[in-house]
């Protein structure tokens, strides 16, 4: 990379724990000149952006939130590897002034790593509101690095923050001190390890820092040291470490002793402790019963908005944009080969275009989620739901994304981002397609009405229950066997509530909507085209299409469930979108797409109630639709996990449907 003399680029890393207002600072610095991607090879969001000042270009990187420089989570590992290896020009440690003592732990670690840094003392207003007086100058004297008090939410003191960043970059700010000392016994241990490890050790971390991390039992440093040392030398090092397993406690305690001392000298409580408004609100919001009711009310509110504001907009878009443009195209392309018209109107507009009409619904959902996240409520929701989610091997955080899957599974999969640990997040993504989405319920409603008359509601309800049971079992299985031992412990901060920052909320919403549009324009479009091609070629007639032939090939399996090849084809087309099943049946059975009455009559004539139940179950549990598969691929960044999701649902759906049909026949429901 070339560096222009007049436009020197300075790398600024924002480090800090979650809930410190880090994103707000980042948004305030970079505005819309930001880029959201992923860290190479990881499923963690990487935000970077540009900020200009006095002809200087700052490239700002928002590191994932982390409480320490350990390797307790992927997020922490990314943050500390960036700091230790990429060596940013300036590190801004963003701390929550209202929770200073805990936040100083990370500052202590950063000082010990020895990076050029300053401290942004954010949320000064919240601290004052809860009766704390934080003396920034006193803190500066103790830390030995510049401290800038800040209220990032309303932009207060941002220019001073930039000035200070510039000063640190220029090297005019006071140089960082060597960092808080370790207790003598620990220093001796460092010396011992230093003697045991050869001087030419080649690892991408500062030597002393790596040795201390080794004493703390850091897994990834241990691995990289073991790999770069001769076996006998490693055995010696390991011997020293094994004798001092308690070192981790002593080191952490010494850092907190330092933090507590700094806190004591810089913070005073003139008014004494009093319960803040937030703490009073929490008496209800974290109450075992009251909290559940409040959470249910909030979810209901989100649903109400999605269905009363979002859904009418979606229908309007569908009628006016999708239907009209597809119709218009058909007129415009009269005379062109049939397949080309079909490609445009059914493949592209009917597939990916239809998905795009869901933007209003998703935008409302994403907006509500971003708002609840920013206010600090999410941790409370996780707290009240944990009791139930724990039973199926998940933690409280997974509840909200899963619950939102009732409308459509795509936002559930994309919403899994709010789940912190990787194992729990992947489990959530993998079971999310089992939440019975609205599109599937359309099919269920048609079948139950056709076959079960008065018992239709009961059968529908049983099917939903069946899905939830399978979901619970799948979650239990995946978390117990696939992520065994990697289960995250439920130790979560309940951040103080604060007023949402409109800019942060809107930017977060915008980023997520953008992601969805990109997904629809790429992966979902590609999937729609593939399915369209399969159902169109070679003759343009679905019965003779590739899909039709696959359906015929599946007839023997269908036979185990009492289903003929036409039902199998209908099932396969549900891969485009779950409700597609009905349209396909209309075409194959020759009853037309709109006439549900005729379709119902035809259905009852070609299969027995036992087969109908099996088919509903099959449809409910079948592989996720194309859009969900694309979303799974995007969120897991792995074809293996995507394949796993498709595979296990394929096997489960066929297995369950076969069992249902065979059992139902025993009870005389078959022909």
């Amino acid at each position: 990379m070339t560096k222009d003399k007049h436009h020197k680029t300075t790398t600024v890393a924002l480090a800090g724990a979650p809930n410190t207002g880090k994103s707000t600072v980042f948004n305030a610095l970079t505005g819309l000149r930001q880029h959201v991607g992923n860290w190479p090879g990881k499923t963690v969001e990487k935000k970077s952006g540009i900020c200009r000042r006095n002809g200087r270009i700052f490239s700002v990187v928002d590191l994932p939130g982390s409480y320490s420089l350990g390797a307790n989570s992927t997020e922490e590992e990314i943050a500390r590897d960036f700091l230790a290896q990429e060596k940013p020009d300036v590190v801004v440690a963003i701390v929550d002034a209202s929770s200073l003592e805990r936040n100083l732990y990370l500052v202590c670690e950063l000082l010990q790593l020895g990076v050029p840094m300053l401290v942004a003392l954010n949320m000064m207003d919240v601290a004052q509101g809860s009766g704390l007086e934080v003396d920034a100058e006193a803190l500066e004297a103790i830390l030995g690095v510049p401290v800038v008090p800040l209220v990032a939410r309303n932009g207060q003191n941002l220019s001073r923050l930039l000035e200070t960043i510039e000063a640190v970059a220029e090297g005019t700010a006071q140089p960082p001190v060597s960092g808080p000392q370790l207790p003598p016994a620990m220093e001796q241990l460092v010396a011992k390890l230093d003697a045991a490890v050869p001087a030419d050790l080649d690892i991408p971390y500062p030597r002393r820092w790596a040795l201390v991390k080794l004493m703390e039992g850091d897994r990834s440093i241990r691995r990289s040291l073991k790999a770069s040392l001769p076996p006998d030398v490693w055995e010696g090092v390991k011997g020293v470490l094994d004798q001092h397993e308690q070192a981790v406690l002593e080191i952490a305690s010494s850092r907190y002793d330092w933090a507590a001392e700094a806190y004591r000298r810089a913070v005073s409580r003139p008014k004494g402790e009093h319960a803040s408004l937030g703490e009073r609100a929490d008496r209800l919001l974290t109450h075992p019963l009251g909290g559940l009711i409040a959470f249910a009310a909030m979810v209901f509110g989100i649903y109400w908005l999605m269905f009363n504001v979002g859904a009418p907009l979606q229908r309007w878009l569908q009628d006016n944009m999708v239907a009209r443009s597809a119709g218009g195209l058909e007129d415009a392309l009269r005379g062109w080969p049939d397949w080309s018209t079909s490609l445009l109107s059914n493949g592209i507009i009917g597939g990916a275009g239809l998905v795009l009409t869901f933007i209003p619904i998703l935008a409302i959902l994403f907006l509500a989620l971003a708002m609840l996240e920013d206010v600090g409520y999410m941790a409370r929701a996780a707290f009240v739901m944990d009791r139930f989610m724990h039973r199926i091997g998940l933690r409280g955080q997974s509840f909200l994304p899963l619950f939102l899957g009732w409308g459509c599974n795509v936002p559930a999969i994309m919403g899994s981002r709010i789940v912190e640990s990787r194992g729990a997040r992947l489990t959530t993504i993998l079971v999310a397609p089992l939440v019975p989405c609205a599109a599937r319920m359309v099919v269920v409603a048609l079948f139950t009405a056709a076959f079960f008359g008065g018992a239709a509601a009961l059968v529908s309800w049983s099917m939903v229950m069946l899905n939830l049971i399978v979901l619970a079992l799948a979650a239990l299985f995946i978390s117990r066997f696939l992520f065994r031992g990697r289960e995250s412990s439920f130790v979560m901060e309940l951040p103080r509530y604060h007023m949402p920052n409109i800019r942060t909320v809107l930017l977060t919403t915008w980023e997520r909507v953008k992601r969805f549009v990109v997904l629809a324009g790429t992966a979902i479009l590609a999937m729609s085209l593939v399915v369209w091609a399969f159902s169109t070629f070679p003759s343009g007639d679905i019965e003779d299409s590739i899909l039709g032939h696959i359906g015929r090939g599946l007839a023997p399996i269908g036979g185990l469930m009492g289903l003929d090849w036409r039902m199998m084809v209908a099932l396969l087309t549900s891969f485009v979108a779950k409700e597609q099943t009905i349209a396909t049946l209309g075409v194959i059975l020759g009853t037309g797409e709109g006439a549900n009455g005729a379709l119902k009559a035809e259905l009852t004539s070609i299969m027995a109630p036992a087969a109908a139940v099996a088919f509903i179950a099959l449809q409910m549990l079948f592989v996720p639709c194309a859009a969900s598969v694309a979303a799974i691929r995007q969120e897991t960044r792995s074809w293996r996990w995507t394949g796993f999701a498709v595979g296990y649902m394929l096997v489960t759906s066929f297995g369950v449907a076969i069992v249902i049909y065979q059992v139902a026949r025993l009870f005389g429901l078959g022909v």
Partner: protein
Amino acid sequence: MKRDDHVVPLGTLRPGETGTIAELSGGRAFVARCLAMGCTPGTPVTVERNAGRGPIIVKVRGTRLALGRGESMRLHVKKQDLKT
């Protein structure tokens, strides 16, 4: 390790009761996480919410933490006498 009679799992404390952290048991990751969140040996912890089942809420170093039931039973505290 010799265990004091007053050392009990944190999850057994009632709301309003305070103990000082005596022992952290469990996996390395769990211990590291607790330490990073401020639960170092000797630190006072006050239980704010404990319904007897499900997760609990505690206050440590001015920060409120939610702990899973299992986690709260692996953190052992020395119970402070109410009189002192």
